[in-house]
């Protein structure tokens, strides 16, 4: 329970810090870099290391590479949806989740067998 409380606080703080940085920076394309900051990873790797060990953390890092490519596909999809359609940002970012799930689990199945 304490572990998950720590994760919650650390994750909330890390995400907030990068969000504030993104809000204050211009131009917007530069600020967007912080939308893909390793906030969740930074908040969890030390906890994961102490709870599950280095081998577990390393495997998470390997999968995170695939997750990062899925995030790139997601962001590209959001950009296309907003430029080509008259839909809100909220709807575009939700719809693009399909791209993240497809790329993340597709690449993971191809490279790691989802085991």
């Amino acid at each position, binding site marked *: 329970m304490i572990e998950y409380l720590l994760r919650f606080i650390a994750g909330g703080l*890390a995400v907030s810090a990068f969000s504030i940085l993104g809000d*204050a920076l211009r131009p917007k394309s530069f600020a967007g*870099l*912080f*939308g893909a900051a*390793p906030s*969740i990873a930074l908040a969890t790797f030390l906890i994961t290391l102490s709870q599950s060990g280095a081998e577990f953390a390393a495997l998470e890092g390997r999968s995170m*590479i695939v*997750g990062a490519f899925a995030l790139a596909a997601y962001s590209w999809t959001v950009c296309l949806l907003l430029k080509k359609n008259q839909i809100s940002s909220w709807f575009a*970012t939700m719809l693009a989740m399909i791209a993240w799930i497809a790329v993340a689990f597709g690449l993971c199945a191809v490279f790691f067998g989802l085991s």
Partner: protein
Amino acid sequence: MIVQLNLSALRETRWYDYAIRFVLGGAVTVIAGLIAARFGPVVGGLFLAFPAIFPASATLIEKHVRERKEKAGLAGARRGKEAAALDAVGAMLGSIGLAAFAAVIWLLIGRSPSLALFLAIAAWLAVALLAWAVRRRL
């Protein structure tokens, strides 16, 4: 345009916007931990790059730009969407840096955790900045 830090832009964000992002960030971090505990590190690692906070950020950007442009008598709805799309381009470039961060963790965390984290942050920042600079020149 050169990179600028505009702290006055933070005044446009309401306290509840910060609260929403804190709670969302915390919740996703907990969920990522639960997924890793239930399904193992291969699936769990994917969710360390989940776009959890992006929908809230993009919506906020669209809202702020729309309000600012409408106050100035301009077409706010279109400008708001364009700003959110630009933010998504930045996130796409940042994802390349995120992959570099993850690669350093994968290769080095077994040897020296603190050094791995330090080098991973440096790799993320360097690769993300490089990707952004290269795109600007294209």
